């Protein structure tokens, strides 16, 4: 247990460094790869928090799905060897100022707030995959079956929407 904080701070450095490189890199393909590292680091953070199921979902959906989709669309839409244009200097300066101001303000609020101590017992029995599945599909008072169904309808709508948007329109009779 004594090396646990070291693991957390190492993971934080990996996540923040990879995210920073992902938003500042001039080559779009490298930016996507840095995003992959940041998302994998976040999955490691979930493992560190002992939320194994969320970590597995993070790896399967984000790293395996979304990043691959982004890389495909990079290949489809532009020459990946070309540099992106640098941001306009004035806009970059004001963005840095606004972001730093927001970060400092939020951190002040977080450090001032006194979080209650919830205790740390009996978690491993609760957060198992079986319990998650049972409560996700239960129709009782604390069940989540209605949001589950709504999200499946949303995924169906997104799928149909993708097909409709990406469909080529036939040229009218010439």
């Amino acid at each position, binding site marked *: *247990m004594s090396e*646990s*904080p070291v693991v*957390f701070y190492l993971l*934080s450095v990996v*996540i*923040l460094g990879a*995210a*920073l490189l992902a*938003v500042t890199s001039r080559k*779009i393909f490298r*930016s996507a790869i840095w*995003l992959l590292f940041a*998302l994998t680091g*976040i999955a490691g953070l979930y493992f560190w*928090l002992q*939320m194994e*199921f*969320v970590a597995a*979902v993070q790896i399967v*959906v*984000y790293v395996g799905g*979304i990043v691959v*989709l*982004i890389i495909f*669309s*990079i290949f489809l*839409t532009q020459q990946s060897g070309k540099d*992106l244009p640098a*941001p306009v200097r004035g*806009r*970059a300066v004001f*963005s840095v100022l606004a*972001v*730093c101001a927001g*970060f400092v303000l*939020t951190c002040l609020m*977080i*450090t001032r707030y006194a*979080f*209650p101590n*919830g205790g740390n*017992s*009996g*978690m491993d029995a*609760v*957060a198992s995959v079986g319990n*998650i599945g049972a*409560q*996700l599909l239960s129709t009782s008072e604390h069940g989540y079956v209605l*949001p589950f169904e709504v*999200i499946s309808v*949303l*995924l169906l709508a*997104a*799928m149909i*929407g*993708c097909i409709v*948007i*990406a469909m080529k329109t036939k040229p009218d009779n010439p």
Partner: protein
Amino acid sequence: MSQVPLTHILVLSTALFFIGMYGLFTRRNLITMLMSVELILNSANINFVAFNRYLYPGKLDGIFFSLFIVAIAAAEAAVAIAIIINLYRNFKSIDVEAADEMKF
């Protein structure tokens, strides 16, 4: 895990959120803006999971919210990439400055 206070995890997720915000402000390319949005959604996810772990260790609601956020992010990324590819077909560019035909 109990040796790291909750505040440090919240500072980490705040930093991740504002890094995503910086990317959203400075990038003009639609795919990189989509990457910044993914970073922002992930910072919200970290908050949900950390609050569930630290403040309500006997419940599962934070896990459910983060799972739903992941599902919505997947749907959003799929629709956004379909729109981006369609935009590229019409304008031969995915820069946001190039696609201003419906502006006025």
